[in-house]
């Protein structure tokens, strides 16, 4: 607590009595094994724009979920006070009734329906039990005017760009008579013009008396618009900065967001022997025709033998998309650029080609893309290199069991048997199985995407130890991670990505959290 109070030096003692629309007092929310929120205090003045910032996983979204009733009253401790009254929401319906609306990053609109149908979805205007479409369209027009969106309400949602869809979401929120609007990273998917528009709208709404809370990773935006900024780190409120007093500066924000010491949770590598370039990517561009966005812009990156290259950046920076584009492009992006493995130009038509060339990819979402949860440990470990275990198409099961036992021991996978269904293992052990599966393909270059997400500290340490061992054996590792301490503690070299571009490259020795955060929020 001492350390924290030093950080809170910037917290101002409020002298004048202020009218708070919302006070969240001493909120603590625990998940099995993790304290996601630890005594968080969060106060929002009536009619202000209040920004909530913090690293990935700091607890911002959890706090908003507590506020909106996604985590119902009773699943956390502490009080939510709205307009001076203690609230206890059982679900989103309750918080909506109280006048709180949340707009999530992933928009909750139905693409096939029209603008007006979407706006009144779930609370249709009715007359004698039938929907009054005329009234609906008239009301929709008013709401669209209010959010300064000039489209025909009869347009299907799918014909609108993301920026306009966002405005429809806000219009939808206003259709429910709200006075507190919460936006979760509203500009993450928007281009500059649309972002600018949205900021203008929030300012205008402020003059109408609407209070907004905005979660954002883009610090420039925050500085431009915020009246107050609250910084959260590791589930705790670090400080509240007042723009009117000139406290909201980039330096102050970054310092408070990252101000954590890297202690010795990272095992030291004894041998450092960095060799030739193993994988090189030149001028890689990728376009996703599903979302219609350019997801990678002119990426140049290389990794050498015996080297860990960290790829830092915020969620949505394009890091996972980069991994997919290298690894045989299973999502069918339109790709241009060149990939070289050990100096040779390669062209991977599918993931199998990449695996054959010596590439392995431990996915970010191990449950959805990494493992086959309904199968056992043994089958998951052998899957990507089953041919090595087979003779003319018949699997040698004895060999397979030997291999599975080998990785179970080498990676200390805690499982009652290798025939345990993998869905029953803990996150850390699932992750070790993922790693084992890919080590069995004997890769030259291993891509790790958020290798320690959702696993406990002990298992993290073990994963780091495994990484070091592999590097000492001369493997090359690309480690994508949102945890800055991890990137800095484990990498030899660091690339920073933002909005599909590489915005910086540095040796780990020269890296500071401030520097990375600055490049990541460009």
């Amino acid at each position, binding site marked *: 607590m001492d350390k924290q109070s030093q950080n809170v030096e910037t917290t101002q003692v409020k002298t004048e009595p202020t009218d708070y629309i919302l006070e969240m007092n001493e909120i603590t929310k625990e998940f099995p094994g993790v304290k996601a929120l630890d005594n968080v205090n969060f106060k929002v003045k009536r009619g202000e724009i209040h920004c909530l910032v913090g690293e990935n996983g700091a607890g911002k979204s959890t706090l908003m979920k507590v506020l909106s009733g996604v985590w119902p009253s009773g699943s956390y401790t502490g009080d939510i006070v709205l307009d001076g009254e203690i609230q206890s929401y059982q679900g989103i319906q309750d918080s909506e009734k109280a006048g709180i609306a949340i707009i999530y990053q992933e928009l909750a609109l139905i693409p096939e329906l029209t603008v007006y149908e979407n706006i009144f979805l779930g609370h249709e205007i009715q007359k004698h039990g039938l929907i009054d479409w005329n009234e609906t369209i008239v009301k929709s027009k008013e709401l669209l005017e209010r959010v300064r969106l000039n489209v025909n309400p009869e347009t299907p949602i799918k014909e609108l760009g993301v920026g306009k869809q966002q405005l429809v979401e806000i219009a939808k929120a206003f259709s429910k008579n709200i006075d507190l609007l919460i936006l979760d990273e509203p500009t993450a998917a928007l281009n500059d013009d649309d972002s600018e528009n949205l900021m203008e709208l929030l300012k205008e709404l402020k003059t109408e008396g609407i209070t907004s809370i905005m979660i954002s990773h883009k610090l420039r935006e925050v500085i431009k618009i915020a009246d107050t900024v609250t910084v959260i780190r590791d589930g705790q409120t670090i400080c509240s900065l007042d723009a009117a007093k000139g406290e909201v500066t980039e330096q102050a924000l970054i310092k408070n967001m990252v101000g954590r010491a890297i202690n010795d949770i990272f095992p030291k590598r004894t041998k450092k022997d960095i060799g030739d370039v193993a994988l090189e990517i030149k001028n890689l561009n990728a376009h996703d025709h599903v979302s219609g966005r350019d997801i990678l812009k002119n990426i140049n990156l290389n990794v050498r033998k015996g080297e860990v290259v960290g790829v830092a950046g915020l969620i949505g920076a394009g890091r996972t998309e980069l991994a997919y584009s290298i690894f045989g492009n299973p999502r069918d992006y339109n790709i241009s650029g060149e990939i070289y493995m050990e100096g040779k130009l390669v062209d991977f038509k599918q993931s*199998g080609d990449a695996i054959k060339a010596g590439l392995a990819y431990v*996915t970010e979402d191990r449950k959805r893309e990494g*493992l086959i949860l*309904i*199968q056992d440990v043994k089958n998951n470990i052998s*899957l990507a290199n089953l041919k090595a275990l087979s003779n003319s198409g018949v699997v040698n099961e004895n060999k397979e069991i030997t291999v599975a036992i080998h990785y179970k021991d080498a990676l200390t996978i805690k499982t009652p048997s290798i025939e345990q269904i993998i869905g*029953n293992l803990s996150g850390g052990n699932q992750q070790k199985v993922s790693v084992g599966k890919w080590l069995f393909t004997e890769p030259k270059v291993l891509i790790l995407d958020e290798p320690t997400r959702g696993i406990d500290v002990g298992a993290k340490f073990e994963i780091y130890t495994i990484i070091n061992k592999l590097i000492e054996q001369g493997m090359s590792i690309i480690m994508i991670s949102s945890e800055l301490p991890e990137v800095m503690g484990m990498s030899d070299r660091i690339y920073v990505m933002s909005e599909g571009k590489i915005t910086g490259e540095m040796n780990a020795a020269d890296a500071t959290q401030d520097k990375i955060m600055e490049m990541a929020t460009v």
Partner: protein
Amino acid sequence: MNVVTELKTILKKNVRSYGMFIALFIIMFTFSVLTNGVFMSPRNISNLINSMGYIAVLAVGMTLVIVIRHIDLSVGFLAGFLGAVAAILLTQYNLPVWLVIPIVLVMGSLVGLFNGFLVANLNIPSFVVGLAGMMVFRGALLQATNRTGTIIVPNPSFNAIGNGFIPDINILPGYHLITLLVGAVSIVLFVVMEFRARNTKIKYNFEIMSMPIFIAKLAFISFLIAYVTRILAMYNGLSWTVVIVLVTVGLYHFMTTKTVLGRYIYAVGGNPEAAALSGINVKKITYFVFASMSMLAALSGILYTSRLQSATTTAGTLFELDAIAAAYVGGVSAAGGVGKVTGSIIGALVMASLVSGMNLMGIGSSGQYMIRGGILVVAVIFDVMTRNRK
């Protein structure tokens, strides 16, 4: 005491696969009692098994289709149509049986490849592809039988596929000797292979069953084989249909449990994204599974035409639904990735036993359909509940 706890864990671990066997025993026992033993008579059991052959091979193929999260509704009328094609080739073109069978099987495979292409490359829902195929092949069947109506097949060697029995040397009165010998050989083979597998496991220091339980398992399964063999031997012996079904099931069981291809099929069913990222070509797997399904539909058509000794205008009606029901009863999960070929065969046996037993009891077809529907739901409820308990 140790043996008892081991037995308990084995039972608990395999409650789903054993559950279906237990259900089959209960059904057979109940009908035996209700029909004063007629149900378990050699003649009835032989008929029952022989009459389910054309559904059994479809259920084998359907298992794989459902495992990779698809469905194929076209196989019923495809079987009917290809059965008619076989009849036409035999009667109007006078081709020999040994040529007609491979031609029809290849035609089936090609249809399946095309279905697989529509599903995997053009992303058309397999339900729609199957529905379209159902209409197309129904029309094709009517077209093929348009001129003559029912096509009678007077070819005795072709008709033996669905009605004949393997030959015998008449030494032992009252028993089909070759059938008994086949049964005895399979028991010996089974025991030898189990012992060899056990010895390799010991060599590698893997977990094994304790000796008493291992022996009990061998004795039980040997007894089952012996019992069924004896019943069949007391009638006409093994039919060619049973031989064909056993070979098909054996091949598919081997393929799904022992080969890389089999693993890939279950990986694609369990998690297509993870499978693709593991280097598996999901499209190729889809082609293969649909091609195998339609090839088995062709086989089903041959078995059915041969059994009726003719191709009729309504052949194949609702075959696909019987096959799907057999697969679900046999523990194949609609969510994909789970289900055994042998389970589906047990499922087909359960459904066929119900029909046979109810026929013996004189229950009308209206009641039979309702009871079969009820059993289907109960089987799937059991399956879902044992799965969720994990």
